[in-house]
């Protein structure tokens, strides 16, 4: 026995030597991720104290759940949570419908050059930042000078203040977000379509199925698994209404319909220096998101056999 175990130890040691370079490769990344992702997780204790910068994280007085009570007692809080969920869900639902529709339309195109050109053009907005697109939108949608309102007034309607009217602002957010992303989102669905066996289409055609029926009974079912997967994964972003876009387009007159959790955290935390309150709101969002993302990944793994790593 003694002999055997010493042999085992020997083998373990040689295995360790073999794997040592792998640990060394991971080390720099692990250090950076630890400092800039894990240490901030420790910082969430600030949510339970009244953080005073001069006293530091360990010297500041402990207040328990006060910051959370404060957050939920703010008059705007319920509005902000509702805005976040409404905007995010509208983006997910309509984004999905437009993307699937676009995929089906592209799929009916047989001229390769035309398909390629359309794809090239509709992907472009995805690669531009919200600063660039926001600048363009603000110019285009301006009530007095923008080209969109020129067209609307030309048709005899009144000017619409897309970015300043609470009735129109969420609509503007959803449409402009879809404009930016729908093209690029088709990639995943188009990839799924390439795996459909062409023989299915041929035999359906021989049996006299129209193009419409082939789309309905072959293409759509072929896309179904990836649609299910995408819907499941999007569950995780129900609290992500798109911070960068909203931040760029938001102005105080549309806080009522467009202020979201992330913009509220930014304003309270880094502009008004209410560190603890902002951390508490952020923590509320992180935990809810964590549960949602965890559930969505679990469901995706369970039903679509999806694994990230």
């Amino acid at each position, binding site marked *: 026995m003694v002999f055997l175990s010493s042999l085992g130890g020997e083998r373990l040691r040689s295995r360790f030597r073999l794997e040592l370079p792998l640990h060394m490769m991971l080390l720099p990344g692990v250090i950076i*991720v630890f400092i*800039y992702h894990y240490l901030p997780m420790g910082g969430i204790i600030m949510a339970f104290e009244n953080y005073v910068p001069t006293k530091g994280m360990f010297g500041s007085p402990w207040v328990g759940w006060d910051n959370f009570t404060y957050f939920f007692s703010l008059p705007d809080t319920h509005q902000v949570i509702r805005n976040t969920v409404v905007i995010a869900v509208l983006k997910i639902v309509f984004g999905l419908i437009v993307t699937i529709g676009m995929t089906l339309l592209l799929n009916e195109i047989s001229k390769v050059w035309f398909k390629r050109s359309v794809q090239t053009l509709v992907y472009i907005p995805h690669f531009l930042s919200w600063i660039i697109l926001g600048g363009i939108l603000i110019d285009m949608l301006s009530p007095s000078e923008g080209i969109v309102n020129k067209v609307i007034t030309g048709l005899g309607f009144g000017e619409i203040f897309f970015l300043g009217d609470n009735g129109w602002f969420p609509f503007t957010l959803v449409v402009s977000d879809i404009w930016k992303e729908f*093209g690029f989102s088709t990639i*995943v669905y188009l990839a799924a379509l390439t795996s459909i066996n062409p023989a299915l289409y041929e035999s359906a055609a021989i049996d006299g199925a129209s193009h419409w029926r082939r789309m309905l009974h072959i293409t759509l079912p072929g896309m179904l698994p990836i649609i299910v997967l995408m819907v499941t994964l999007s569950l995780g972003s129900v609290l992500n209404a798109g*911070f*960068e876009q909203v931040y760029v387009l938001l102005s105080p007159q549309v806080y009522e319909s467009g202020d979201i959790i992330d913009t509220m955290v930014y304003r309270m935390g880094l502009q008004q220096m209410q560190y603890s309150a902002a951390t508490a709101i952020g923590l509320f969002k992180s935990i809810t998101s964590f549960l949602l993302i965890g559930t969505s990944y679990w469901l995706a793994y369970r039903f679509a056999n999806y694994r990230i790593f």
Partner: protein
Amino acid sequence: MVERATWSRKLFLNFNYALLAFISFLCLFPIVQMIAISFSSGTAVASGRVTIFPVEFTTDAYRYVLRNKAFMDAVWVSVERVLLGCSLQMLLLVLIAYPLSKEVSAFRHRTLYVWFFMITILFSGGLVPTYLVIKNTGLLDSIWALVIPGAVPVFSVVLMLNFFRSLPKEMGEAAFIDGAGHWTTLIKIYIPLSKPGIATLLLFSVVGHWNSWFDGIIYMNSPSNYPLQSYLQSIVLMKQDSSALSVLDQSILANLSDRTLKSAQIGLGAFPILLVYPFLQKYFMKGIVLGSVKE
């Protein structure tokens, strides 16, 4: 097999071509209009005559912007950030993806490391604690605040890892039998073989760094340290440009307006992306598909 198209099919196909052409036009129109405005004279823009072609063509807006020191400083910060940030990201990406591409049988602690990186996708400390950590590690107001905290893009690690996994395993094993260690195998075999993958992720990394602006705004105290996109945020969205229009020679100013200047700056901010886009497009289909859809 050849099918005779019915009239309704023909109608649909023509409609479909027209619709897709229109959709493409809608995607491009805002960008084209912005470029047209930037090359038009201020008076033409103000009178609303500019749609997709420049009216009273002039490059004055660009000449003014390119002579603006604050703008050029911001361009340099962005260039610096892209060079530093992308090199660091690519280095770490390869170093992390290689060990994680091994099976558990070859690397016992793989699962532990996978979870270590996975958790950062699932949970984050939030804006304020992250800000305080960056402040306390002394990165505020330095270019490193834009480079180091985001140096490990986990989703790109997943893509890279899949590129490595798609390489024939025998190649690595053969190298091992010939006495090469992990470092030699990675540098001499894996990296040269996954050049297309690395090129794709490099382009993504360049686009990502060029486009980021929010970190610039929160981690840079003085606007003179802003990268270009953060600078554009403060100039273009805050509607405060006219105040800067004072010193330069009046002959140029006559042709300018707030809108042409903003459009020129937005155009310059988008220019590098539009420039690398054709190369990007060639690769990303493959990259995205490999990374996101696995069976």
